[in-house]
C-alpha cells in the first residue's frame, strides 16, 4: 500500500526540500535529494508493476478531502490501477534518467538547485495527473505539469525568446484547458459525479442522453469526449494547438526530453485512454480523434523534414508520433496507443538526451548546418542516436517497430470509416520519419566538419553521469517493444465465455475457407497469441482500466490483417533511410534541387504551414488592438466621457454661464450636481412609492 504513496509523493518532498533549502544547503544537496527521491519513486513504481499489473491488484489510496460544495464532492486520492502504474513506471524511470543526466548537463549553470527542484515538481505533477481518482485531480496535475513546463521553458529567464516561448506554451495550453474545463462541467451535470468509478459504471445509463449546449441538443457522451479531447489537443500538441511545442525547445534539453517528449505531451493520450469507457460510446468523437491524429502525424512529419535546428526536428518528430497515438486511440486501439507511448518515451528521450549530448559537445550549437564530421569524436553518443533513430523509424526488432506496426495494423483492421485513411497517412508519415531521422544523423555526425576550429577542438564525449542514463534509455529503446508486446497487444477487455466461444467459431469458419497458406498463417498467429498469453496473462494486463467494446476491438483484429499491411511500414521505413543516404551522403546536390523544384511546397513546410503567422494576426494582434481600443475609447471616451468627466464638464459649462452672476465657482459646481442628484432621487423615490408611504406612516404615529 505504501508503495503508491512513495511513487507519487517522494518527488513532492524532494521539490520542497530542494526548493526551500536549496539556496542554503547548496547544489550538491539538491541534486542528491531530488535524484534519490525520484529513484525511490521509480523503484516503487516498478514494484507496483509487479503487484498491480502482474498480480492484478488495482487499488485506490485515500489522501484527503478537497472541494465539497453541495452535491459536488471531490477528494484527493491516488488511483493505482494498471493504466496509472504503466504511466508511473514510464514517468519515474525516464525522470530518474533525466535527473541524473541533468547533473552533468547543467554542471555549468548557476541555478542547479532551482532546476532540480523544478524537475521534481514536474514529476510530482505528472504523477498526480496519472494517479488521479477523478477528473478534477487530473486537471490539477494537468495544470501542474503546465506550470512546470512554463517554469522550465523559461528557465533561462534572461533570454527574451525563452520567456516568450514559456508564455506561449502556457497560454496555448490554457485554450485546450478551457475545453477540458467545460468537459468537466458537462461530465458533472450528466453523471452527477466526476469520480472515475462513478462515471464509468454509469456510462451505459447515459448513452442516449442529450445535453443542451449553446442551444443545441447534443449527444451528451460525444460532447463530453470532444471537450476532453480539446484539452488533449492542447497538451499533446495536436494540429491546431501545436504551435507551442517547437518553441518550447527554448528550455534546457533535459526538459525537452522529459516533458516535451516522454511524459507531459503524452498526457492527452493518457486522458483519452483513461476515458475509454466513455469514448467507446461516442463513435463520432473517436472519429474526430482519429482524423486529428492522422493529420498531425502527416503535417508534423512534413515540417520535420525541412528544419535545421536539431531539437526542432526531434520536436516535430514527437508531434508526429503523438499523432500516431491519437489515430490509434481513434479506432479504439487504446492499448496500442499506450504501447507506443511507452516505447516512444524511451527512444524519444534517448534521442533528445543524445541531441543534448551533441549540443553539449558542440559548445551549445543547435544548428545542424554547423555540425558534421563528429561521429568519431563522440562515438557513444553517435551509437545512442543510431539506436534511437532505429527505434523511431520502426526498424524490425527495435521498440518502435512493435508499437508502430501494431497501431497501423489496428487502423487498417478497424471498422472505423477513417481507419484506412489514418493508415495511409501513417505510412506517409513513416516514410518521412525514416527520412528525417537519417537526415539528422548524417547532417549532425557525417560529412566534413562545418563548425569552426575552436568548436571542433572542444568536441568531447560527455561525462559518465550523462552517458549512463543514455545507456538505460537505450536498453528501453531496444527491448521495451519485444518484451512488452504480449501485454499491450493482448485483448484488453475481460473476455467473457461467449466472446471466447464466438472467437473460436470465427477461427473455425476462417479455417474452413482458408487455403493452405492462410491456414498456416492463422495457426501461427493463434499460437503466437497463445505464447504471449502464457507469459503475460493478457486479460489481466489492463484489467478494467481500459474498456473496449468487443465490436471495436481493432487490436485483436490487427493480428489478422493482410501480409502487405504488416510489411508496408517496414518497407517505407527502409526506403526513407535509403533516400536520406542518397540525398545527404551520396548525391549532396539533391536537397537543393528538390527545394528549387518544389519551391512553394518547401516554403509551406519550412514555414510550418504558416500557423504561427496566422495566429499572430488573428489572436495576438487582435487582442492587443481590441484591448487598446476598449481602454482608450470604451473606458476613456465613452464611459468616463458620459460619466464622471461628462458630468464635471457639464456642470463646469453651466457654472460658467452662472458665474456671470458673480457667485463662487465651487459652489456652483456642487450646486448643479446636487440638483441633478435630487431630480434623480426624487424620481426613483416616486417610482418606488415612497411618497405614498409617508402619509400612511404619519398616521401610524
Amino acid at each position, binding site marked *: 500500500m505504501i508503495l503508491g504513496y512513495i511513487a507519487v509523493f517522494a518527488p513532492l518532498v524532494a521539490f520542497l526540500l530542494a526548493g526551500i533549502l536549496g539556496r542554503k544547503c547548496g547544489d550538491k544537496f539538491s541534486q542528491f535529494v531530488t535524484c534519490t527521491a525520484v529513484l525511490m519513486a521509480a523503484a516503487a513504481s516498478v514494484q507496483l508493476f509487479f503487484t498491480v499489473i502482474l498480480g492484478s491488484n488495482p487499488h485506490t489510496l485515500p489522501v484527503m*478531502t*478537497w*472541494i*465539497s*460544495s*453541495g*452535491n*459536488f464532492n471531490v477528494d*484527493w486520492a491516488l488511483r493505482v490501477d494498471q493504466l496509472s502504474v504503466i504511466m508511473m513506471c514510464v514517468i519515474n524511470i525516464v525522470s530518474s534518467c533525466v535527473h541524473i543526466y541533468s547533473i552533468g548537463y547543467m554542471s555549468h549553470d548557476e541555478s542547479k538547485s532551482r532546476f532540480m527542484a523544478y524537475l521534481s515538481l514536474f514529476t510530482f505533477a505528472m504523477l498526480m495527473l496519472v494517479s488521479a481518482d477523478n477528473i*478534477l485531480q487530473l486537471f*490539477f496535475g494537468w*495544470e*501542474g505539469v503546465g*506550470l512546470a513546463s512554463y517554469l522550465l521553458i*523559461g528557465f533561462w*529567464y*534572461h*533570454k*527574451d525568446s525563452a*520567456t516568450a516561448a*514559456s*508564455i506561449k506554451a*502556457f*497560454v496555448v495550453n*490554457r*485554450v485546450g*484547458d*478551457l475545453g477540458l*474545463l*467545460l468537459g468537466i*462541467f*458537462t461530465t*458533472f451535470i450528466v453523471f452527477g459525479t466526476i469520480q472515475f468509478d462513478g462515471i464509468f459504471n454509469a456510462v451505459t445509463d447515459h448513452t442516449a442522453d442529450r445535453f*443542451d*449546449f*449553446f442551444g443545441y441538443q447534443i449527444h451528451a457522451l460525444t460532447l463530453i469526449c470532444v471537450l476532453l479531447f480539446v484539452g488533449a489537443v492542447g497538451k499533446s500538441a495536436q494540429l491546431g494547438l501545436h504551435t507551442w511545442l517547437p518553441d518550447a525547445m527554448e528550455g534546457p534539453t533535459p526538459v525537452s526530453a522529459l516533458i516535451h517528449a516522454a511524459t507531459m505531451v503524452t498526457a492527452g493520450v493518457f486522458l483519452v485512454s483513461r476515458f475509454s469507457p466513455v469514448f467507446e460510446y461516442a463513435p463520432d468523437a473517436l472519429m474526430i480523434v482519429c482524423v486529428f491524429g492522422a493529420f498531425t502525424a502527416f503535417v508534423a512529419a512534413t515540417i520535420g523534414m525541412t528544419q535545421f535546428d536539431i531539437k526542432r526536428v526531434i520536436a516535430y518528430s514527437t508531434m508526429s508520433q503523438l499523432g500516431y497515438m491519437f489515430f490509434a486511440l481513434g479506432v479504439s486501439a487504446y492499448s496500442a496507443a499506450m504501447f507506443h507511448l511507452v516505447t516512444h518515451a524511451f527512444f524519444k528521450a534517448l534521442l533528445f538526451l543524445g541531441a543534448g549530448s551533441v549540443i553539449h559537445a558542440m559548445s551549445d550549437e543547435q544548428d545542424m548546418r554547423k555540425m558534421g564530421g563528429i561521429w568519431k569524436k563522440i562515438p557513444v553518443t553517435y551509437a545512442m542516436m543510431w539506436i534511437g533513430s532505429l527505434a523511431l523509424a520502426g526498424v524490425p526488432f527495435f521498440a518502435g517497430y512493435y508499437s508502430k506496426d501494431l497501431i497501423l495494423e489496428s487502423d487498417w483492421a478497424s471498422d472505423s470509416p477513417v481507419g484506412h485513411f489514418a493508415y495511409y497517412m501513417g505510412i506517409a508519415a513513416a516514410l518521412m520519419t525514416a527520412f528525417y531521422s537519417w537526415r539528422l544523423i548524417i547532417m549532425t555526425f557525417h560529412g566534413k566538419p562545418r563548425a569552426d576550429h575552436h568548436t571542433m577542438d572542444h568536441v568531447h564525449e560527455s561525462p559518465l553521469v550523462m552517458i549512463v542514463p543514455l545507456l538505460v534509455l537505450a536498453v528501453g529503446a531496444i527491448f521495451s517493444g519485444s518484451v512488452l508486446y504480449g501485454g499491450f497487444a493482448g485483448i484488453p477487455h475481460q473476455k467473457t465465455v461467449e466472446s471466447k466461444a464466438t472467437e473460436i467459431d470465427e477461427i473455425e469458419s476462417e479455417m474452413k475457407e482458408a487455403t493452405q497458406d492462410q491456414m498456416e498463417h492463422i495457426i501461427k498467429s493463434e499460437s503466437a497469441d497463445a505464447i504471449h498469453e502464457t507469459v503475460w496473462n493478457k486479460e489481466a494486463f489492463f484489467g478494467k482500466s481500459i474498456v473496449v467494446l468487443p465490436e471495436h476491438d481493432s487490436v485483436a483484429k490487427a493480428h489478422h490483417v493482410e501480409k502487405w499491411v504488416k510489411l508496408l511500414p517496414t518497407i517505407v521505413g527502409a526506403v526513407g533511410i535509403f533516400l536520406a543516404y542518397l540525398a545527404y551522403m551520396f548525391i549532396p546536390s539533391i536537397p537543393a534541387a528538390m527545394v528549387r523544384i518544389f519551391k512553394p511546397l518547401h516554403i509551406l513546410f519550412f514555414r510550418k504551414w504558416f500557423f504561427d503567422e496566422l495566429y499572430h494576426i488573428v489572436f495576438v494582434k487582435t*487582442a*492587443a488592438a481590441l*484591448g487598446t481600443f*476598449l*481602454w482608450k475609447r*470604451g*473606458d476613456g471616451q465613452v*464611459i*468616463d466621457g458620459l*460619466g*464622471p468627466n461628462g*458630468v*464635471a464638464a457639464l456642470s463646469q459649462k453651466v457654472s460658467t454661464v452662472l458665474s456671470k452672476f458673480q457667485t463662487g465657482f465651487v459652489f456652483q459646481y456642487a450646486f448643479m450636481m446636487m440638483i441633478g*442628484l435630487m431630480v434623480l*432621487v426624487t424620481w*426613483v*423615490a416616486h*417610482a*418606488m*412609492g*415612497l411618497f405614498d408611504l409617508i402619509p*400612511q406612516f404619519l398616521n*401610524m*404615529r
Partner: protein
Amino acid sequence: MDFPILSFVTFLPLLGAVLLAVLKGDSESVAARSRIIALGVTTLTFLLSLPIMINFNPALADYQFVEKKIWFETYGISYHMGVDGISLFFVMLSTFLTPLCVLASWKAVTDRVREYMVAFLLLETFMIGTFCALDGVLFYLFFEAVLIPMYIIIGVWGGARRVYASFKFFLYTLLGSVLMLVALITMILHAGTADMTVLTGYRFAPEMQTWLWLAFFASFAVKMPMWPVHTWLPDAHVEAPTAGSVILAGVLLKMGGYGFLRFSLPMFPEATAFFTPMVFVLSVIAIIYTSLVALVQQDMKKMIAYSSVAHMGFVTLGIFTLNTQGIEGAIFQMISHGVISAALFLCVGVVYDRLHTRDINRYGNLSKNMPVYACVFVILMLGSVGLPGTSGFVGEFLSLLGAYKVDTVVASFAAVGVVLGAAYMLHLTRKVVFGPKVNDDAAAMRDLDGREKFIFLPFIVLVIFLGVSPSYVLDRIAPSVQNVIAQSTPVLAGDFSQTSSSSVVEDRSGGASQSSPGGASADDQKKDIKDTKDETNEKGNR
C-alpha cells in the same frame, strides 16, 4: 447574553483611533508611537476575532454571536449584530489585512503618520461593522462610513492625480449611496422595521421590488465594481498608497458582493430572477472586456486593478446563478481575491518603494537579484490565474460550474476570461520578474527584508492552504448559502420570469415550480440573452 465579542472586535480599532488622537509630543515621537499603537491595536483585534472563527458552529445556518439592542423603537431600528457563514470570513479578512497594512506602511508613510493610522483604524471599524450589521440602518451607516477614511487616504496620501481619482471615486459611490438610502427608507416605512432578518422574510410587491432592486444594484454594482461603472477603480488604485490599495482590493470590493447576498437576493427574489440575465451579460462583458484592457496596461497597479474587475465578474456571475456551487464559488472567489490581489498590491508596493515607478518596462530580471520576491510574485500570479492547488482556482471553478448549470453560453464565454487572465498575468510576470536585464537601478534593488518576508508569509500560506483544503471555508459557508438560496426562490406570482433550467430547480428547494406563469417568457428571456451573446461573439471574432 454572552460576551459581546462582535461589538468588541468592531469598536476596538475605534478605541485605538481615539487613543491616537489624544497623543501628545513632538511629531517624531508621535509618529513612532502611532505606528506601534496602531499595530498593537489591529493585531489585538485580529487575535480577538480568532475566537469568532474557532467558536463558530459550522452546522448552523442562522446568525451567531448575535447582539440586539433596541435603538429607535418607533422606526423599528435596532443595534443588531451577528455573523453567519457568509459574513464570517469577510470579518476575518478585514481583521487579517489591517495589521499587515499597518506593517506595510511602516516605512512607506512618513507624512502625517498619526492621521494615517487613525484613518486605517476607523476604516477597520467600519469594515467589520458592515459585515456584522444585521440592521438596515446600521448597515447603511457602516457601509457609507467606509468611504470617508478611504476617500481621505486616497486624497491625502495618494499620488499625483489623487484629487481627480478621489473625486471620481466619490462621485460614483455617492450616486449609489443616495439611491440605496432612498430604497432603505422606503423599505423601513413599508415593513415597519429595519431589521434585516425580518426584511428578508418580508415579500415586497413585485413592482416595488424592481425599483428597490435597481436602487440597491446601483450601489452594489459601483462597489463591485461591475462594468460599466468600473472606471473609478483603476484610477483609485493607481493613486492610492499601497496599503490603501490593499484594503480597497482586499475588502472594499467585497462589500458589493456581500450586499447582493444580503439584500438583493433574499429580499427581492422576484426582481432578482427578472434581472439575472442582465447581470449575466454585464458579468461576461466585464470579464472579457477588462481582461483585454488589462492585457495592454503598462502600469502595474492599473493592470491588477483591471484584473480585479474581471475577477469580480466571476463573483457576480456566481452569485446570480442562485445555485449552491455558483454562490459558494462566488463567496470563495471573493475571499481568495481578497488575499491574492491584496498581496499583489503589496508586491507592487515593494518595488515601488525602491524605484518609485509602476511602469512595467522599468523593471525586468528581478529574479536575479530578488529571488525571494520573485518566488512570492510567481506564487501570487499563479493564484491570480487560478491554477489548481491555489485558492484562486476553487472560486473560479465553482462559480463557472454553477453558471454552466444555468447557461452553457454564459459560462463558456466567461471561461474565456481564464485564458485571457493567464495571458496578462504571465505578461506582467515576464516584464517584471523575468526577462533580460533592462535597467541598472532595477538590477541593483535589494531583496525582501525581514519585515517584508513576514508580511508575505501569511498570504502565501493562505493561498496554498485555501487551494489544497478549501473545505474548511466551504463547510462553514454552506448552511448559510442554502439559506440564501431558499430565500431567493421566487414565490410570488407576477409579471416575472425566471431562468429556466432543470438544474436550477433542483438546487432551489421547491417553490420554483409555483411561479409558472412566465414559462414562455422565460424562454424568450433566454433567447434574448443568447442573441446578445452571439453578437458579442461576432464582435470578439472580428
